[in-house]
């Protein structure tokens, strides 16, 4: 493909991120790296049962212990109308999963805190746990929440189904009548954990007037402020949250577990309190993603046109409502232009930790089902899997299954790029299987603010509020460099606390480069407007008579004046004399995030004697709209691919019959290690998003969606039959091989 003429100077380059040196030298401060004088250590008591009524808690010994400063239970939280989050953070009448927090202490040292925790006596009435969607949906199933009625409808009997979701279009029965080939299958996927390497951590310090300062690792400092305010019924203005560097989140750090607890402990102790979860607690008590059951039926005619599709899916929510079943339903058919479909989804309570978002929440599971079924259709039709998808692909103007018409999207472009990619054109060797799948994510916009501060030497500081999990500071600086027309190196980006920058929604939904990026561009434009005003003043012209070109104020063509262009640096230097420091600001509620599609394929081998799947090659093609910093776009694609491979092959929450998680460590919750995976080849496709000045689409979430089915389809190709359920771990593969022979 011919290299397009470069439209940009900064955008599309790959400079070193501004926070890089601190991160390779160990100077960057992450969640657990912050300390205060006189600080205490907080620790949590967790339930040993998956489902039990709490009959009594005896805190007396802990409270009397030397070195213990405060001890709390949910009784120390506001009593009225506790939110689900509050009940998740500290259990009330019932503990709802193994590891559910029940009490917390703050003590002078970690070991005293631990002793205090061990001294707390709890009397439980053990109840039968509900451990799967099947069990939860069974007649006479025990109830996780005796007061829960489906969709809040009081006319229903209490049940474990928190909500139902339904989408439909056209007439599926007629559609299936027109089908020459039909695939109908059920697919099951267990919970997986986000697996961020940094456990949740915070320090809270509440002063004598009740003002709380909190330092924590989070995807959104403003959300943490809201949550603390909600859970503790504290005024928002009494809470300041400073985000630390964050060691991964993938959706798991969009909610809080320890922060409100630390605030309450600090409030009662009159000292700062630090809380750091250990890895076991992270696995047991923070949100994994939903385990799911998906049933899909798809029909196509002889030409490969999908005539109808039907899906039913149950998503485990954990102990509180709120699985991502809705986005799961919305995404399952998103890549296709379908005339007839029905989608039904259930949000199901079980006695497991409350699920949290995990990268493209809901989509990997449902799309694994659809993309596996489409692969089977391609086999029946004897058609190349990319060709089949091209025949049905959604494009600009297609009505998305979830309602709106797509604006410009890049699915067709990705499929076409994949079809001619050398890694696809080269056919796999004998005994190597290839699998293809498509990925999708909606992306979101939401609110962001940004400020631009210009130093007298022309250096620029960007102040914004999106925690940087993957190099987003570099992208902000690149967009500012491009907009202002100044060198990347003269710009720094700072992530502010909740009192030093304007409101900003969390880093999630792949929104940061899009929405906060938009705010940064608008703030730069604000500075440019000011620069033009200052230049106009200097030249005694009207502002309208000044243009901004490549970092210089210049008289507009046709304006009759002898004036040397004024550089950004000169304007900055003289700002004191022309009206004071140069600053710009903007805030947005960004619309039109622009959906992101991908095509992935992988080549695998299977050891038929041990059932082990080996990933030989993996290629990801994805639409980025515009890649501001291509390396970090590739990084998202590669990281998501490997997470997806891990989920497809080995990652799973394994519970015993009592609902105790058996593999709460990185030794047995097997995320891929460096020697497990090959290089991940990437091709970025750019179909600019019309709603962003540089065409950005979010790229962070789509990458995890396609690898599940791509891997499953590749294994299907080698084995000659399909394994519907994930993970395709060696025992499962070997068992399937035995059954097949």
């Amino acid at each position, binding site marked *: 493909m011919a290299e397009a003429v470069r439209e940009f100077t900064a955008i599309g380059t790959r400079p070193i991120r501004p926070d890089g040196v601190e991160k390779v*030298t160990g100077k960057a401060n992450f969640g*657990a790296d912050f300390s205060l004088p006189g600080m205490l250590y907080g620790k949590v008591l967790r339930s040993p049962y998956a489902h039990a009524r709490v009959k009594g808690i005896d805190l007396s010994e802990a409270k009397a212990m030397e070195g213990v400063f405060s001890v709390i239970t949910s009784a120390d939280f506001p009593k009225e109308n506790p939110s689900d989050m509050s009940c998740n953070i500290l259990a009330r009448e019932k503990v709802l999963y193994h590891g559910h927090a029940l009490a917390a202490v703050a003590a002078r040292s970690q070991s005293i805190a631990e002793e205090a925790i061990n001294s707390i006596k709890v009397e439980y009435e053990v109840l039968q746990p509900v451990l799967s969607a099947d069990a939860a949906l069974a007649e006479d199933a025990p109830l996780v929440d005796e007061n829960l009625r489906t969709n809040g409808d009081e006319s229903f009997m209490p049940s474990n189904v928190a909500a139902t979701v339904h989408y439909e279009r056209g007439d599926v029965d007629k559609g299936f009548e027109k089908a020459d080939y039909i695939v109908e299958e059920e697919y099951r996927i267990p919970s997986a954990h986000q697996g961020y390497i940094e456990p949740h951590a915070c320090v809270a310090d509440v002063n004598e007037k009740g003002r709380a300062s909190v330092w924590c690792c989070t995807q959104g400092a403003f959300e943490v402020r809201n949550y603390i305010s909600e859970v503790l019924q504290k005024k928002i203005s009494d809470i300041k949250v400073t985000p630390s560097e964050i060691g991964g989140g993938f959706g798991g750090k969009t909610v809080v577990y320890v922060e409100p607890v630390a605030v309450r402990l600090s409030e009662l102790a009159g000292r700062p309190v630090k809380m750091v979860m250990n890895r076991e607690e992270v696995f047991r008590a923070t949100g994994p993603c939903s385990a799911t059951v998906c049933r899909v039926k798809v029909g196509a005619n002889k030409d490969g046109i999908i005539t109808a599709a039907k899906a039913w899916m149950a998503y485990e929510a954990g102990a509180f409502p709120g699985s991502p079943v809705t986005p799961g339903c919305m995404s399952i058919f998103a890549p296709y232009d379908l005339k007839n479909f029905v989608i039904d989804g259930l949000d199901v309570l079980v006695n497991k930790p409350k699920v949290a978002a995990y990268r493209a929440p809901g989509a990997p599971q449902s799309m694994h089902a659809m993309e596996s079924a489409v692969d089977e259709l391609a086999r029946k039709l004897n058609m190349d899997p990319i060709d089949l998808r091209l025949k049905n692909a959604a494009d600009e103007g297609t009505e998305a299954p979830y309602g709106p018409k797509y604006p410009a999207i890049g699915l067709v472009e990705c499929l076409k790029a994949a079809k001619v990619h050398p890694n696809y054109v080269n056919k796999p060797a004998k005994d190597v299987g290839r699998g293809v799948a498509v990925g999708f994510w909606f992306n979101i916009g939401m609110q962001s603010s940004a400020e631009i501060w210009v130093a007298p030497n022309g250096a620029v500081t960007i102040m914004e509020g999106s925690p940087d999990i993957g190099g987003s500071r570099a992208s902000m600086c690149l967009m500012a460099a491009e907009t202002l027309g100044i060198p990347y190196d003269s710009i720094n980006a700072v992530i502010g606390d909740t009192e030093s920058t304007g409101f900003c929604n969390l880093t999630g939904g792949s929104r940061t480069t899009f929405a906060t990026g938009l705010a940064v561009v608008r703030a730069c434009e604000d500075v440019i407007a000011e620069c033009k005003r200052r230049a106009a003043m200097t030249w005694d012209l009207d502002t309208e008579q000044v243009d901004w070109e490549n970092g210089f104020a210049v008289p507009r063509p046709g304006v009759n004046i002898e004036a040397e262009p004024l550089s950004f640096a000169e304007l900055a230097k003289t700002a004191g004399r022309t009206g004071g420091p140069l600053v710009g600001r903007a805030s947005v509620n960004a619309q039109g995030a622009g959906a992101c599609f991908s095509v992935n394929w992988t080549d695998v081998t299977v050891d038929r004697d041990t059932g082990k799947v080996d990933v030989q090659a993996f290629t990801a093609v994805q639409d980025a709209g515009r890649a501001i910093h291509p390396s970090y776009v590739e990084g998202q694609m590669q*990281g998501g691919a490997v997470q997806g491979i891990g989920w497809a092959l080995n990652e799973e929450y394994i519970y015993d019959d009592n609902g105790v998680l058996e593999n709460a460590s990185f030794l047995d919750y097997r995320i891929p290690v460096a020697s497990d995976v090959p290089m991940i080849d990437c091709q970025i496709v750019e179909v600019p998003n019309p709603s962003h000045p540089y065409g950005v689409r979010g790229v962070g979430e789509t990458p995890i969606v396609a690898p599940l089915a791509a891997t499953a389809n590749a294994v299907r190709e080698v084995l000659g039959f399909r394994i519907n359920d994930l993970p395709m771990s060696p025992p499962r593969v070997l068992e399937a091989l035995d059954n097949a022979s």
Partner: protein
Amino acid sequence: MSKVHVELNVNGQPEEVLCEPQQSLLDLLRDELHLTGTKEGCGTGDCGACTVLMDERLVCSCLVLAPEANGKKVVTVEGIADQNGLHVVQQKLLEHAALQCGVCTPGFVVAAKALLDKNPDPDETTIRYWLAGNLCRCTGYDKIIRAVQDAAQELKATTTS
């Protein structure tokens, strides 16, 4: 409480600390010496975020008891760059955008440097297996491996020229 007196050398500096016997070297570095560059991802030897060199051997500092470090020479991520600036491994990790969140990076820096000190010309498989105890959840490892390969090339070029 019976604390243990530990004398050790950290990044070339002699240090003396009082510790509880069950504390780890990681706790000693982070809580007593305030060297928070070394991270705790698991505390059980599984993630490598706490990697340091102890008497020139790579270890998980979470699986070394503080008193065991008595008399030892410890090098942490804070001791990898010198007065000439960043180590090639650090520079290459930056150039290749081989960190996203960066919490695994200190462990990778120490482990990769140790590899290149021992084996200046590792192939991709060797690098991947050497670094298998360093988990990274963000990058999928691709850019980290390339950065280490590139660092090896650069080291070779500077030592042969």
